[in-house]
């Protein structure tokens, strides 16, 4: 039997919902339409079937999420992932952290950075540009929002262009959204095997 995962990991767990997902066979036309625009075409996940209870939100959020995380130009894919990881650490979304740590590693192979973030969380000491990216995203993710104009200035000093700074805000913010679904509507279970 799979057990809930409570510690940060880069090994992607399974996500198990607390609410009953929509049954694919009895989904309404609006729900089917909303599910079609999701990235996964190899079977619809429990997460998407759960969100299909609100097809209007799902239909808009999936393309928005993809554009923010995988759009062209601006912030590098790895740094978008780092912004997502920072937000997910603040919100302690073990599932989102695992998925995006594994994607960060696929881009960079920088296991030492991920290990440092998992061990020290918001106190993690990183190389200057990574630190600026991580801290800004983390401080934008807290309630109340801790990020300051000085933190924004650090991003600029670290060499991020205006477009890169904007992309970082978007990646942290869209994870404020994703974490509030993933972490609160279900739990991560250790993957079998």
């Amino acid at each position, binding site marked *: 039997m799979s057990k809930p995962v409570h510690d940060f990991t880069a090994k992607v767990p399974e996500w198990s919902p607390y609410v009953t997902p929509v049954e694919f066979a009895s989904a309404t036309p609006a729900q089917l339409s909303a599910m079609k625009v999701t990235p996964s075409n190899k079977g619809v996940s429990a997460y998407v079937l759960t969100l299909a209870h609100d097809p209007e*939100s799902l239909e808009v959020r999936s393309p*928005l999420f993809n554009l923010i995380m995988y759009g062209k130009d*601006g912030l590098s894919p790895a740094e978008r992932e780092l912004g997502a990881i920072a937000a997910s650490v603040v919100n302690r979304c073990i599932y989102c952290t695992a998925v995006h740590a594994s994607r960060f590693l696929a881009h960079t192979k920088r296991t030492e950075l991920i290990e440092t973030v998992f061990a020290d969380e918001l106190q993690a000491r990183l190389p200057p540009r990574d630190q600026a990216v991580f801290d800004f995203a983390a401080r934008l993710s807290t309630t109340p*929002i801790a990020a300051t104009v000085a933190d924004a200035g650090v991003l600029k000093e670290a060499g991020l262009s205006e477009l890169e700074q904007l992309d970082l805000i978007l990646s942290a913010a869209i994870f404020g959204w994703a974490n509030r679904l993933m972490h609160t509507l279900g739990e991560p279970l250790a993957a079998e095997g």
Partner: protein
Amino acid sequence: MTTLIEKLAGIPTGSKLGAALKTRAEVLRLSEAAHDAVLVPRDPGGLSHALRAALAARMCRHLGSAALVAHYDGYLAHSGDADVAALAQPGGVSGDPRQDAMARHADLLTLSPRNATRGDIEALRSAGVGEPDIVRLSELAAFVNYQLRVVAGLVLLRDAS
């Protein structure tokens, strides 16, 4: 067309940040569509448009975002539903157990989502909130927290430049 996020962040169009926003016009357009999907959906389920506006204003008050509070208070006033107005204030209750449970959950998802557990979903169910409405409420809270952070982040970049 100027989107809500652009209007509230007040970024000068001729600035470098204004140019960056122009590059991300599609993100802003989809963010606006998401706003409409959670605030004024065609099928609101068990969360009326007025209740959604009240809860959104409440969450924005938690973050101290005057501009977004004013925006959602405007939606609430336009709805003309006085029964849910008290929920727009942190700590405010309507006396309806179902709505009050939703307000508590919106508070949790705004203030400390990391502390949310299965028990919080059970509490919603016990108060009579159906499963589709649990998801609708979660999307509303999640979107408003996204929007609050995009606007706040842009204001920081604007003031740092």
